């Protein structure tokens, strides 16, 4: 039999419907692949093979009766940030040791209701704070891609898979699941997708319910998929998104059948190219990739327009006020009393302080302190309020751009995948990973990263398309054009298998 793990989500769905293989066979292939590869990649924190096979049995029964649901029998990986009833949910943090929620997140419940199968929980940066997956309490994830030397030989250096959804991107890239859930607060879906040759979309704020997703920065967090193809991402998002009474920021808007609207092309589509994204020190290969993307869209009938988004450079510093401020508030709940780790102290306050000091990793502690500082007495107006006003200006830049263009095209990241340890010593260097993605979160817009080429070292690079609020449909259509032109990017040697 062919290797079922190499199928796309759409191909696997069609194969199950055609009874070419069963959900149990498909699930078994992924369980075996995870068992072999995970010691090398560390993409999964916890695998749930028994649960997966039980779900597969139910799917096979339904498929046999012709009662298959839209995602019937399709095995997925779930980022550790999503509450999964009775299953390890710890945001890759020590502070949540042993936490098994008594409820299910809305996004994962939607997927199970559509017939999907859970393979396990995926590694990530602790509390989704990081761009390399190196802040996980469970250790870093290894990117399936390796650098290629001029001689053509692949290097053994371990590259990061991006972050915070590094387990999701690595698992999808290495064929350890058909697709994965992920979340994006400043770039945590799109940056790892770009670094692993996968497709990732952060939908408009409010498209997916945040209920049951461990909160990082509530005004920025959104769930979305990482998948092998644009079509797969379109299928996933449709079944993740919903209006949810349990999240008042989720919107009461019908979720389109994104897949059905693929293939419309980009004829007449107005594509904006913002000059502010040509940042100092950007690698020439990123610039070349960007131009290639412009050429592909133009060749497919789109028109290209130079635009200006003047407040772009302020998005990242404003983000590093808003996100830590909201995080310091959200993470106040980890007190050693209600869940997770408790380190006994001399009194209650000492217990709080010891539990939190031991439970949170270095980057999380750093951000809590920044957030606490900017929200402390006398500083609120100077920092948080100011940053929220800058957000209004960032959003206004886009609102004005939408008069002239339908989508905006940019690179996803300023550079390709880097080696473990290369940027972890300098917080600001790591924060710059999100320079092209963070504006999208600040403005609440949808953004998709689609693989578009290889770096000089043979590792993947992504292009980002940014859309109008709730116009994910156009992003999928335009991303499909890039994918059709660029082809798919699959790691050249399956050294992990």
């Amino acid at each position, binding site marked *: 039999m062919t290797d079922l793990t190499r199928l796309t989500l759409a191909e696997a769905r069609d194969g199950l419907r055609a009874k070419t293989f069963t959900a149990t066979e498909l699930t078994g292939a992924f369980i075996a692949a995870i068992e072999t590869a995970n010691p090398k990649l560390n993409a999964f924190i916890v695998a749930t093979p028994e649960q997966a096979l039980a779900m597969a049995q139910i799917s096979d029964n339904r498929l046999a009766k012709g009662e298959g649901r839209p995602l019937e029998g399709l095995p997925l990986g779930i980022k550790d940030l999503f509450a999964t009833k009775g299953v390890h949910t710890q945001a890759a943090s020590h502070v949540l040791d042993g936490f098994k929620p008594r409820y299910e997140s809305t996004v994962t419940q939607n997927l199970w209701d559509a017939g999907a199968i859970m393979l396990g929980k995926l590694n990530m940066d602790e509390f989704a704070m990081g761009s390399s997956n190196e802040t996980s309490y469970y250790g870093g994830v290894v990117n399936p891609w390796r650098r290629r030397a001029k001689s053509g030989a692949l290097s053994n250096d371990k590259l990061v898979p991006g972050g915070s959804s590094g387990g999701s991107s690595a698992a999808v890239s290495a064929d350890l699941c058909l697709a994965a859930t992920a979340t994006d607060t400043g770039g945590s879906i799109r940056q790892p997708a770009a670094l692993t040759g996968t497709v990732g979309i952060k939908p408009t704020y409010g498209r997916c319910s945040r209920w049951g997703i461990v909160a990082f920065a509530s005004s920025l967090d959104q769930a979305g998929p990482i998948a092998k193809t644009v079509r797969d991402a379109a299928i996933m998002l449709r079944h993740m998104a919903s209006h949810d*009474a349990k999240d008042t920021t989720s919107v009461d808007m019908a979720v389109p059948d994104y897949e059905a609207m693929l293939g419309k092309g980009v004829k007449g589509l107005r594509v904006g190219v913002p000059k502010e994204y040509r940042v100092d020190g950007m690698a020439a290969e990123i610039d070349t990739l960007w131009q290639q993307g412009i050429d592909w869209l133009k060749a497919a009938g789109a028109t290209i327009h130079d635009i200006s988004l003047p407040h772009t450079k302020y998005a990242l510093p404003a983000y590093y006020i808003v996100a830590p401020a909201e995080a310091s508030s959200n993470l106040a709940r980890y007190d050693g009393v209600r869940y997770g780790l408790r380190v006994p102290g001399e009194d209650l306050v000492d217990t709080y302080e010891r539990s939190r000091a031991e439970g949170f990793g270095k980057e999380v502690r750093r951000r809590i302190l920044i957030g606490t500082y900017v929200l402390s007495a006398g500083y609120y107006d100077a920092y948080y309020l100011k*940053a929220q006003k800058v957000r209004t*200006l960032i959003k206004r830049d886009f609102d004005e751009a939408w008069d002239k263009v339908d989508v905006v095209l940019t690179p996803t990241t300023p550079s390709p995948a880097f080696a473990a340890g290369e940027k972890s010593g300098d917080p600001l260097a790591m924060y710059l990973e999100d320079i092209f993605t963070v504006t999208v979160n600040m403005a609440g817009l949808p953004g998709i990263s689609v693989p578009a080429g290889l770096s000089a070292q043979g590792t993947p690079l992504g292009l980002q398309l940014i859309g109008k609020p709730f116009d994910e449909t156009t992003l999928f259509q335009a991303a499909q054009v890039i994918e059709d032109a660029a082809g798919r990017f699959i790691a050249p040697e399956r050294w992990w298998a």
Partner: protein
Amino acid sequence: MHVDEATVRRVARLARLRITDEEAKGLEGELSGILDWVEQLNEVDVAGVEPMTRVVPIAMKMREDVVTDGGKAADVTANAPMSEDGFFVVPKVVE
């Protein structure tokens, strides 16, 4: 903006994070560096600009003021490091 060691300790106290002397020194530099970097926002004129509160104009949802959930003390305390009879157990706080 320079953050001195005393400020680091005050903020850590507010955040309920125990820090060692060594950490306090390291954080002094790191936090100062990050706060210096965000200072560039001072270049932006925000006079008359409203802070962003939402992405798309949607009305706050209303619902009847009725109990919709509850009676789940066992679920709520299930993950607590220490609990008893549906209560969280903490070190003594009242003499």
